[in-house]
């Protein structure tokens, strides 16, 4: 740009025609939050395919008892990489992609507060992730599980380089995550449009703000622990070696001090997406938005005080266990408030069953099941029965796939027109949705029962003659193909719609938050001008003059 006039762009209505985004160099060197957001999300989907194929390998191996599809050595690497990939290379970049793309648009800002830091966060993530996959070529991937408990993760038990790559790679991506977390907090606190008080930010942005705090305060615990394990492995320190006074339990505390907030880090943006999708397709204001925001704050605080519920079977004594049982039970209350509020938002509305809305509704049920099975882990005696069994696998897949993935796919259908300028195919979308609902529930629901029948987690194979194990595992494995097929169909829909989708226009859903005021795709600095914000729904105010915050009914 040669300067002078500000309005040098001619309006375009398709992402592929945006003049600033032409050429690969424009993507490699970009500090534009929109391009980085897209890169984050595309990378996440790339790793989703890899992670899903690893998941499929796990299901193939477990399809029959005492089978040998892959060796136990490969299997243990695969399930470790499946977990690590899905959490750090799919979940995190997916949420950061949504966060950095949408946050500035939703608060009426031109970009993130620190665009270069934003770019740094993305590239550090990508190279960190590639580094971990490089370990396959270096003599073996990590094999201590995504939680990498010492002493198993120490070099005395796993001496190949994989575990070193694991620690180093997560440390690198962890630094990027903290940087992005800081960036999001500062952006939201300092760059909101005139009139947009913190009470008027969209719920999605509010969730992202809390997410930023969660990232900034929990990731450092992991980063510190990663340095310790790396030192143990390479410099012969003894942080986690019980034979000379170190403590394996110390790692568990560090890891779960990060690990539990991490669950909320992953799910909060999904909740945010749902809190935008449900109101728009119910044509109503989000019910009890203030309480919704407050309950998110409550969850943010509580989530730092529940980590020991991952260690209830570690024999820590009554008092420490009980304190964490109480906090873990309490966190169910604000979580429940959210479910009721979403339901109440739909009540009395005019529902439109778009694919985005279908995913949101499936999310509601599946997340409720995942939440309720989570209560079983807060009630310590039940945790003693069920922890480390397949019941846990069922539980967190209901939260992370049935919850997080469904809600963010809902978000993709909802915001895709904004990002690309084109609508996603609703026909393909409905096929994908139903395949995914059946594939997901078919794969994971029976795992609750497997847990009850005593099948432990992370097993390479299982003995013959255990009651129901073979049948249920076979059932689950069959449905897992449907689940993976639905994911591939989703990705196909992304590509197909990019070339053949209907042109969307700025506000195809008749939605109310600021991003829908911008062009689709948004121009270089997002807005020609930003209106003064007077309610939670500035576009409602623009249309009707007032009433964006709805009417009081005590």
């Amino acid at each position, binding site marked *: 740009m040669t300067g002078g006039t500000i309005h040098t762009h001619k309006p375009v209505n398709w992402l592929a025609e945006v003049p600033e985004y032409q050429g690969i160099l424009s993507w490699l060197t970009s500090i534009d939050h929109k391009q980085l957001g897209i890169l984050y999300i595309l990378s996440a989907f790339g790793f989703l395919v890899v992670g899903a194929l690893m998941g499929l390998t796990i299901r193939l191996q477990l399809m029959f008892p005492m089978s040998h599809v892959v060796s136990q050595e490969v299997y243990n690497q695969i399930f470790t990489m499946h977990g690590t990939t899905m959490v750090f290379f799919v979940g995190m970049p997916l949420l950061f992609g949504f966060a950095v793309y949408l946050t500035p648009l939703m608060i009426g800002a031109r970009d993130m507060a620190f665009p270069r830091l934003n770019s740094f966060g993305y590239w550090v993530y990508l190279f960190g992730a590639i580094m971990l996959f490089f370990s396959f070529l270096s003599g073996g991937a990590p094999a201590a599980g995504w939680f990498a408990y010492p002493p198993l993760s120490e070099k005395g*038990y796993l001496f190949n380089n994989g575990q070193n790559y694991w620690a180093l790679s997560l440390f690198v991506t962890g630094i990027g995550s903290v940087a992005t977390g800081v960036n999001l907090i500062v952006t939201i606190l300092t760059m909101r449009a005139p009139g947009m008080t913190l009470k008027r930010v969209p719920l999605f942005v509010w969730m992202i703000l809390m997410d930023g705090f969660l990232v900034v305060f929990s990731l450092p615990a992991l980063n510190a622990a990663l340095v310790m394990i790396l030192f143990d492995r390479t410099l012969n320190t003894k942080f986690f070696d019980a034979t000379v006074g170190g403590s394996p339990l110390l790692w568990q505390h560090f890891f779960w001090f990060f690990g539990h907030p991490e669950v909320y880090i992953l799910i909060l943006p999904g909740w945010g997406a749902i809190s935008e999708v449900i109101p728009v397709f119910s044509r109503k204001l989000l019910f009890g938005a203030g309480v919704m925001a407050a309950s998110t704050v409550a969850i943010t605080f509580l989530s730092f005080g529940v980590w020991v519920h991952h260690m209830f079977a570690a024999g820590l004594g009554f008092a420490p266990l009980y304190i964490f049982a109480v906090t873990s039970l309490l966190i169910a209350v604000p979580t429940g408030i959210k479910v009721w509020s979403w339901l109440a938002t*739909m009540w009395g509305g005019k529902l439109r069953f778009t694919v985005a809305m279908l995913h949101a509704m499936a999310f509601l049920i599946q997340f409720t099941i995942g939440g309720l099975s989570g209560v079983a882990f807060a009630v310590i005696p039940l945790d003693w029965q069920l922890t480390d069994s397949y019941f846990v696998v069922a539980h967190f897949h209901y939260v992370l796939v049935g919850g997080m993935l469904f809600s963010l796919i809902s978000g993709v259908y909802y915001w895709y027109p904004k990002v690309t300028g084109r609508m996603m195919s609703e026909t393909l979308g409905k096929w994908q949705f139903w395949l995914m609902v059946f594939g997901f529930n078919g794969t994971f629901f029976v795992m609750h029962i497997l847990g009850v029948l005593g099948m*432990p987690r992370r097993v390479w194979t*299982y003995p013959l003659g255990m009651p129901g194990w073979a049948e249920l595992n076979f059932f689950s494995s069959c449905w897992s193909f449907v689940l993976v097929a639905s994911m591939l169909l989703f990705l196909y829909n992304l590509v197909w719609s990019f070339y053949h989708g209907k042109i969307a226009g700025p506000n195809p859903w008749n939605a109310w938050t600021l991003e829908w005021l911008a062009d689709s795709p948004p121009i270089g600095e997002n807005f020609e001008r930003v209106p003064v914000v007077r309610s939670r729904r500035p576009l409602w105010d623009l249309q009707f003059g007032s009433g964006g915050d709805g009417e009081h009914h005590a």
Partner: protein
Amino acid sequence: MDIKNADFTSIFNVASLQNRHLVDLHWFTLAICVLIAFVVTGLLIAVIAKFRTPENDDGSEPRQVQGNIRLEIIWTAIPLLIVTVLGVLTAIVMLVVNPPVGNKQPDVVVIGHQWWWEYRYPKLGVTTANEFYLPVGKNTLFEFRSADVVHSFWVIAFGQKMDAIPGHPTNMWVHPIKTGKFLGTCSEYCGAQHGLMRIIANVVPQEEFDTWIEKQRAVPEQPTDPAAVRGKELFNSATCVECHRVAGNEDAQALIGPDLTHIAQRETLGTGVLANNTENLKKWMQNPQTFKPGVNMPKMRLTDEEAQDIAVYLESLK
């Protein structure tokens, strides 16, 4: 292997007094959770049925309700009440199931190894591996230790599981209330053979338990059968004795692998992967990796005859 004579494996198969309390609490919690799930699903179905946009919609927006304080208080208070009840029950059941141990001596010390279990009865002076016995009707205090990495001990029908963590001994009470064979598996990921690190618990009447203890304490007779005599020599001269112990055989006193003093009394080999007989034992010694890939016992490079003789010797250790 398929252990056919075992009791049904399920957390709802109540084989200990402790698990009865756990299961009672479990049904209570499950009932509440199922009820909530039905309410949420029912409301969603009602919403879908009632509030879909009509065909002839005029495009007007519905009433924009901001919220409802009374409703919001209700759906905060009721869950709060539920979790309070669950919290109180949690404390009660925890204390009933796992009362403080103080400095009581454990009845059974379980030591997790990669990938087998060592059982010691310190009060009775017995050490064995992989299959253990408990008297019915007696509250037994367990202690868990680990020789290497973190393991977790879980006999499913006993309900509770407990981790075995290096440098951090843990305890658990088990009061068996029915006799039978109960299965379990290590439930904390512990490396290559985590999935086949099985637990076989035999709950028997007190007299039978006492007989078993007597047999375990007895030193097996020296072999007389020529094959077994040859086998013992081979056992002592090959590397077997670097890891294994056999009481009464002073060359075999290592404590790295499972104690083989009374191996012939056990039903299984390799922590429950093979039925215990001379033929299987022979195959196991010749190449344990085919049955349990990753197991720490190396391939022994024995000829058929040598393996046969050692197997005969070991199977004579009753």
